[in-house]
């Protein structure tokens, strides 16, 4: 269904592309000349020409929770007083190697897999993967069955147990649905970085890099080429969009 939309809009996009030279030299939907401003126009659908990803350097990850706080502030997640039911879009994990005693800390959030188990099991289609790689919950369709929470190997998703107040206007959230890290899709669509990445950079640690995995010249691609990056639970073959370094 979605492929028809792309092909039927291609002529219109071509004409638009011809007129949009100043705006960013779009050659075709999603393909842009390197180095020129890349803001996606509001009326263009996202395409798979881009794949958003995160690279987290655990050697730079400090003992703070700046990313967690930034995420909660950005998305209007308030502490509901019960740690068992308060939703959690990102959390800090600490892992200690038993033989060497080496400790790593890392933030864990939705890994935005290429083959997400949550999407496979969702009975309604609410859990879906956008063309540009961001895995989202369409909370209009979500029935709150929590099958996706069971399927996720990373325990990335949370169920909203309580009536929600104090939502951010750009991040609607409500009781009875499942939610998870959206990779700050509302920011990404405006050519900004996720709140956690921005906060980590602002705090001076710089452990998180966000960018286009399909762009060979992006910062994240360069980092991955030079230093590598592993997936957590790579054995599952999910091809996650979030990679870690130093594990």
């Amino acid at each position, binding site marked *: 269904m*979605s492929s028809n*939309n792309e092909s039927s809009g291609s002529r219109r996009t071509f004409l638009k592309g011809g007129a949009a030279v100043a705006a960013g030299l779009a050659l075709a939907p999603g393909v842009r000349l390197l180095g020129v401003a890349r803001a*996606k126009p*509001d*009326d*263009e*659908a*996202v395409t798979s020409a881009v794949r958003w990803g995160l690279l987290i350097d655990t050697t730079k990850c400090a003992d703070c929770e700046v990313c967690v706080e930034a995420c909660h502030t950005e998305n209007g997640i308030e502490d509901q007083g019960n740690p068992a039911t308060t939703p959690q879009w990102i959390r800090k994990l600490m892992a200690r190697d038993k033989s060497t005693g080496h400790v790593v800390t890392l933030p864990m959030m939705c890994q935005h897999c290429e083959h997400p188990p949550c999407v496979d099991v969702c009975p309604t289609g609410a859990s*879906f993967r*956008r*063309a*540009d790689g961001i895995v*989202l919950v*369409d*909370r*209009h369709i979500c029935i709150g069955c929590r099958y996706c929470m069971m399927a996720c190997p990373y325990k990335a998703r949370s169920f909203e147990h309580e*009536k*929600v107040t104090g*939502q*951010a*206007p750009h991040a*609607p*959230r*409500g*009781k009875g*649905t499942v939610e998870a890290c959206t990779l700050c*899709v509302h920011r990404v*669509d405006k050519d900004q970085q996720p709140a956690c990445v921005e906060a980590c950079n602002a705090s001076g640690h710089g452990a998180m890099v966000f960018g286009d995995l399909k762009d060979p010249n992006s910062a994240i691609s360069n980092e991955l080429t030079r230093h590598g990056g592993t997936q957590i639970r790579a054995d599952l073959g999910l091809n996650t969009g979030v990679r870690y370094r130093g594990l």
Partner: protein
Amino acid sequence: MRSFLRIVTTIGVLAAVSLPAIALADVPFPDIPKGKGDKCVAPTDEIRKTHMHLLLHKRDQTMHQGIRTKQYSLRECLNCHVQPKADGSYPDIDSKEHFCNACHSYAAVKIDCFQCHVPRPDDAK
């Protein structure tokens, strides 16, 4: 017996048809709060019938394709239609002073949009 019933039903139908709907109802027609500007994105009669269809179609486009234009966007509706009260605060979604609720409570059509969405415009604090 049958002719008696026929007469009764005829009188009943005539009564129902002849009385105007507004006078017949116990509930007075709502006082719909005025929005910003002079007109909506579509004529009133049309938008009254089709606004949910437009909103639902737009939300699917926004969620699944990342299309974030202002036309038929819920937030843009709120930006115009939900205006602050005289004291500067914004009407509560459950009050009759909220634009959406004013009509929806009259029509007895429950909406659940605002269980998740913020019922205030973007510039509300």
